[in-house]
């Protein structure tokens, strides 16, 4: 059974600081997703990482994937309040790209002035 673990599950940080969210998964997969969810809203796709060593950046967010370590990271640089949200990582349950996703429990991020 595929397990996806995120840590931390809750993070409170100050504006301007850097931090990293970690996502570990238990079986081989070459495709990992990061989503953002604001309270009461749907999920917004941030990144899709498709191969070992993949790195993607959008604004203050950068995601990377190490398939050998079964680890993905989401790095936040110089955090701003607008980045406050819950962040989820997810992995293809069967590795085919068309099957459902297995999600981590999410990291609730609060960025304070």
């Amino acid at each position: 059974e595929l397990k996806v673990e995120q840590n931390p599950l809750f993070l409170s940080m100050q504006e301007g600081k850097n931090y990293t969210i970690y996502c570990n998964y238990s079986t081989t997969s070459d495709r990992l997703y990061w989503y953002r969810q604001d309270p009461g809203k749907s999920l917004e796709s941030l990144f899709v990482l498709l191969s070992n060593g993949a790195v993607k950046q959008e604004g203050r967010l950068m995601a990377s994937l190490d398939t050998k370590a079964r680890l993905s990271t989401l790095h936040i640089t110089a955090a701003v309040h607008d980045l406050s949200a819950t962040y989820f990582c997810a992995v293809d349950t069967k590795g085919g790209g068309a099957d459902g996703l297995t999600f981590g429990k999410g990291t609730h991020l609060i960025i304070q002035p």
Partner: protein
Amino acid sequence: DAGITQSPRHKVTETGTPVTLRCHQTENHRYMYWYRQDPGHGLRLIHYSYGVKDTDKGEVSDGYSVSRSKTEDFLLTLESATSSQTSVYFCAISSAVETQYFGPGTRLLVL
């Protein structure tokens, strides 16, 4: 935004009644999914479809059935709703080449 709508957006029902949730897409994507989101669990896959009339079970499929008679519509049915099915239900679509896009969600309360 991907063209995904869900109906109803909110529903209150009583234990034992049947409930059907609808997901409609205008993107002509082959793959469609139903997830539920509960505090402390993240999102969990209920059922998914890889084409018209082709569906498969996900992690938490007990008590749910699905149907897909047209590419654009994916229905989720709770045959006899229970309080444990109180949740937020999200539909998602995918072309399998890129990410999954999520609909706005349906909040279901089973009393």
